[in-house]
């Protein structure tokens, strides 16, 4: 069912955890299955120097999260934001058709992290990234409603730490 690459990334995911004082954060959720992914980036001179993820999800979601950190690290923001589901699926040696939406989740999380960075820095946001952000925003509302209690606890902790 799952490829060797998927299972390797799933068993030993790369770059998971938080980044302290990230330059950009992307938080997305999948309304279909209920998976949630948070992605953190560090940026220097327009290049992603560090990237980490936290994911609540299945094998495919965890593997997609892991691979996208590998794909994005060292790339310019522009190139990173353009990483789509096809690149993720191909890099994983394929995903079962029903699990392709998990790769979309990873791609969305990265776009959102880049969007967050550009917005914070007051930089110009490309039109396609803006469009994607609007689409993701709608889905995020639904998912945050679903995990309301858990998200609240988590955000309060961030505030406490800050």
């Amino acid at each position, binding site marked *: 069912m799952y490829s060797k690459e998927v299972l390797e990334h799933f068993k030993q995911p790369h770059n998971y955890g938080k980044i302290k004082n990230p330059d950009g954060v992307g938080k997305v959720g999948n309304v279909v299955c209920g998976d949630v992914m948070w992605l953190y980036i560090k940026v220097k001179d327009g290049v992603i120097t560090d990237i980490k*993820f936290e994911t609540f999800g*299945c094998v495919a979601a965890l593997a997609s999260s892991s691979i996208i950190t590998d794909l994005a690290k060292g790339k310019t923001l522009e190139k990173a934001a353009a990483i789509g589901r096809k690149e993720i699926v191909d890099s994983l040696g394929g995903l079962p058709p029903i699990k392709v939406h998990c790769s979309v989740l990873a791609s969305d999380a990265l776009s959102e992290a880049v969007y967050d960075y550009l917005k914070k820095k007051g930089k110009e946001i490309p039109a396609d990234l803006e469009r994607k952000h609007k689409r993701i925003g709608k889905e995020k509302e639904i998912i945050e409603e679903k995990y309301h209690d858990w998200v609240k606890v988590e955000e309060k902790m961030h505030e406490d730490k800050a």
Partner: protein
Amino acid sequence: MERSYLDYAATTPVDPRVLEAMLPYLREQFGNPASMHSFGRDAAQALEQARETVAKAINADVNEIVFTGSATESNNTVFKTIALANKGKHVIISPIEHDCVLNSARWLKGQGYEVTTLPVDRFGLVKPQDVAAAIRHDTVLVSVMHANNEMGTIEPIGEIGAVCRKAGVLFHTDAAQSFGKVPIDVRKMNIDLLTASSHKMYGPRGAALLFVRKGVKFAPLLHGGGHEGGKRSSTVNVAAIVGFGKAVGLCMDEMEAEGKRERQLRDWMISQILERIPKSYLNGHPEKRLPNNVNVRFDFVEGEAVLMRLDAEGIAASTASACSSPKLEPSHVLLACGLRHEEAHGSLRFSIGRFTKEEEVKRAVAVLEKVIKELRDISPFKEGR
């Protein structure tokens, strides 16, 4: 790698004693019981012996046992032909039935029948008074499973049977998970129709039964050469049915001792999981529960990921999370019990059995504890930080 099979509710290995009993009927005693010669007579004798064993196990008469190919076939027969042969236009089911009952009831709805789905409480229990209230003048059939396949909750089928008998409505129970594990008496429990399956009780696949109480109007699903007294045509799978009979005999002989052993393992496992893993919860009823079922859920992690991490360590379990389902929907059983989508997301079932050793259960709990911790480290949501 050391491997532990803790998924007996999905299927069981064939007991070596069962296999031994079957082998002659695949070799020299291969005859067709419908044949008149000695080969056929030998096979027919073995078939009838299996029928006797099975009938005795549920306190039925031999003429009331129809051998079928699967529990799915037995349940389809109840909804697609028996319901139609009897008077009425309304059936009642529980919301936690197996898909083969739910989808057969859906089919019946397409034939112009009305289907009432009963409520269940948070443990998955049906209340007999709800059954009584749902019965109408045109109700033909009530179908409530004996024990649930996911949570192991045991339904009060004796009381439900009494309600149905009083109202003169057929009562069917799917006992695929319970037969051989807990006692069944079709007379005392007022059961009219009962489904059970060989491969859930250390027999081979391809053999199952439908008990049809004497006096219940029957119509076959499979028409043909008139096997099984015209109730189920198909060349009889003698070896599988001999195995089924042997498996039933063994389960009945060992039910008390094995039930006690499994209950102890089950309760140890549940208490250890709940104690050692924070934010873990039991699904289903703590006592009215199959002796071999452990169904738990964990906050902040997803079931398929837990299952596959366990699998990587050689431990076989089962999950009903949305991610593991072909429709990406969480278990209809857990949702019917009032669990929210995200709660069902982190659900996991272990089901132990005859060949499960204490060490396996101990290792499973230790590995589970580690796996949940690791996955929570990766999850954006974490326990009580």
